[in-house]
């Protein structure tokens, strides 16, 4: 049977990679976009949108349980034949590619706006591309280990900012408690469930995880931890800034880091965080590049994905320059990826699950012999 040559990682590696993928967006426009729609109840919007994502994740995990040890493309091949696998591979590859190009631009714009204003954006993007190329070339195991290494620093990076800006907290800023209103929160929540679309990555690398039995537990765990981080960050962000200001700031966590003022000595320490953010962004992009190349490899039956990395990164590099400015780039992320990404992330597994039900295939007994 055909197989793209990838490495094997533990389910714990999957957990850490999912956390990195899900949480990285908190350093971009997510906290601000949530306040824009949820007002002082932005935290509630996050919880409701997480609840809206639960059925999508459940469908994905149900599908993975029906076809243990197989990734989404292999499942599509079994259910819909070669055309189905080809189409699934293409969709996943382009989805990752599109997300990567937008995120390269967002992270580059963030670096440009905050620390390197005179450096051409192409040079900053080039470094992100270089880092992701190197990571993706070395494969899944290296990405997983790098994620495990970076994970504590990311958590420390987030929570230390919240702690060091706690002198600005005013809990009255979290009122009126329902913010923009129940109606608006329920209206925005399904679209905002796209915040968790990165979970689909678990479906793409399902065949490369050693202990398949615990995949659902690790996915749910990563999802729950991310939701908790999002909610805590959002609560602090709004409590520190008041809603009108919180609705307007780009790169909210960087703004919070710049606000740190704990007496004469603890201030101006945002540079410490820049490194964490760069590595976090680079790692997230690495996963996207890897996903895009592997999905394309599966679609075209190319057993080695590495030769695809350079052309895909070139495409990501080129596409990242399409948005005219920083506002367009952030809008593209928040209005398209984080609004309609759910259609692909939850729709694709659902379509496959329906196909499995119609064709009466899968039942948790199938073993992928190539994995043995």
């Amino acid at each position, binding site marked *: 049977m055909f197989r793209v040559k990838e490495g094997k990682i533990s389910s714990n590696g999957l957990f850490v990679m999912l956390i990195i993928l899900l949480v990285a967006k908190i350093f971009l426009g997510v906290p601000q976009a949530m306040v824009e729609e949820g*007002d*002082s109840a932005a935290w509630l919007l996050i919880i409701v949108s997480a609840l809206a994502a639960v059925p999508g994740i459940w469908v994905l995990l149900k599908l993975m349980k029906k076809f243990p040890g197989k990734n989404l493309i292999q499942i599509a091949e079994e259910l819909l034949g070669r055309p189905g696998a080809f189409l699934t591979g293409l969709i996943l590859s382009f989805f990752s590619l599109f997300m990567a190009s937008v995120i390269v631009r967002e992270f580059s714009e963030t670096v440009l*706006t*905050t*620390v*390197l*204003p*005179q*450096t*051409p954006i192409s*040079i900053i993007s*080039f*470094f992100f591309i*270089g880092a992701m190329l*190197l990571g993706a*070339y070395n494969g899944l195991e290296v990405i997983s280990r790098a994620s495990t290494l970076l994970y504590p620093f990311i958590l420390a990076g987030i929570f230390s900012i919240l702690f060091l800006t706690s002198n*600005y907290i*005013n809990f*009255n*800023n979290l*009122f*009126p*408690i*329902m*913010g*923009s*209103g129940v109606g608006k929160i329920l209206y925005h929540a399904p679209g905002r469930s796209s915040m968790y679309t990165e979970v689909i990555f678990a479906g793409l690398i399902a065949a490369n995880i050693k202990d398949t039995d615990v995949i659902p537990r690790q996915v749910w765990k990563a999802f729950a931890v991310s939701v908790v981080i999002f909610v805590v960050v959002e609560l602090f962000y709004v409590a520190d*800034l*008041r*809603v*009108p*200001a919180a609705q*307007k700031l780009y790169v909210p966590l960087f*703004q919070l880091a*710049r*606000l*740190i*003022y704990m007496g*004469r000595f603890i*201030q*101006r320490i945002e540079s410490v965080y820049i490194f964490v953010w760069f590595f976090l962004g680079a790692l997230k992009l690495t996963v996207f590049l890897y996903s895009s190349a592997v999905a394309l490899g599966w679609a075209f039956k190319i057993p080695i994905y590495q030769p695809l990395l350079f052309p895909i990164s070139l495409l990501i590099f080129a596409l990242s320059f399409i948005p005219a400015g920083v506002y367009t780039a952030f809008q593209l992320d928040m209005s398209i990826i984080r609004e309609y990404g759910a259609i692909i992330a939850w729709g694709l597994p659902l379509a496959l699950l329906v196909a499995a039900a119609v064709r009466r295939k899968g039942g948790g007994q199938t073993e992928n012999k190539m994995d043995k």
Partner: protein
Amino acid sequence: MIVLILVLSVSFTLGCWDRKELEDQAFVQAIGIDKGQDNQLLVTFRIAIPSKAGLGPTGAGGGGGGGVGSVAAKSSLLTTVAAPTIPAAITLASGYVNRELNLMHTKVFIFGEPFARQGVGPLLSILSRYRELRRNIFVCVAKGEAFKLLAENTPDLEKSFTKYWEGVKLLESRLAINPGSLFHEFAIDTEALGISGTMMYLAENERAKTAKAGDIKIPPSFMEGNLGIKAGEIPRTGGNPIEYIGTAVFKGDKFTDVLNLTETQSFLMLTGNFNRATLGVKDPLIKNRFIPFEIKQGSPPIVKVDIKGDRVKIKERLSVEGDLVAIQGPVEYATDLGKQKLLQSAVEKHLEEQACSMVKRLQKRGIDMVGYGDYAKRNFLTRAEWNKYNWPEKFKEAEIDLKFVFRIRRTGLQGRQPEIHP
């Protein structure tokens, strides 16, 4: 691959584009903004001269006013430029300062009074957007023009203006003589519906330069043991003529009022931002005698805002603790618990009167500087309902009930009063 990346890193990480040598930069420590002619800005920059910083003794070396001898003043350059915008002023100033002006170390933004009364709104954007300026910069209103104040400011004890401004801010928590306002706090309060923004208030004390100690006029509030004065009014001679006592009150983006020292302390207590300060009250049993305390807030204030239709009832309960610093009269407040109770009630009454008169004065003008609106929001479910309620108007008619609980915790290093024999 690794070699290629290393080579590229070496080539590209030299910081070619954002390279800034220290000796090519002119670091601005303070910026003053005034109204210029024909709708232009007068932008004053206090620029550090690092090569002269830290040289020689601090201060003028005795006598009236830090004056020309101040090391901080000597190790910096003061210049004022007329320009339509602040970036334009930076460009113009760079044209004769010989270096590119850099605002990354700017500590304070001072608005001249006429400019602040007209509204600081148009300048808020640059403070929020411009990368070099930080949201935790200090913001002040100067009585009169900012450029005059910056020119007269000659710190006696500090070798650097940066350290000087940090010291001014520190006095918020040490003595509660100013609100220590940061731009961030001002900006978010100005944008919100339920609270008014504040800045530190600065003024030059012209009499300090000329008056003789014997000619010093005593402010009437001192007769009551009350330090009801603001910057520019300290009865004194000598020292830096610039004072930083009081709070500049804003309605929207317009400077409208000033709180004096005691009002500033009340304001900080009511908002829960009071750390510690000294307080003098009249001795309730002996005429013309005063009792100074070191006070601090016992616990955060408890505020409850009840809304029934258009009727608003605000209740605030404050807990303040104090240590006796001195007793001028012979009454044994330190050891007689009954008398101590009497003194506690006198302090409570003093604090209540002081806070009520300040809050009510501003309430009449629809200025909610304590931020009772923040608590009122809890009565509403959604932002739309809150916005519709029109808090600034409703606040004018609100019933405000302030109560202080004061407890004497410590009485100093001595028990009974000294016995003085005739």
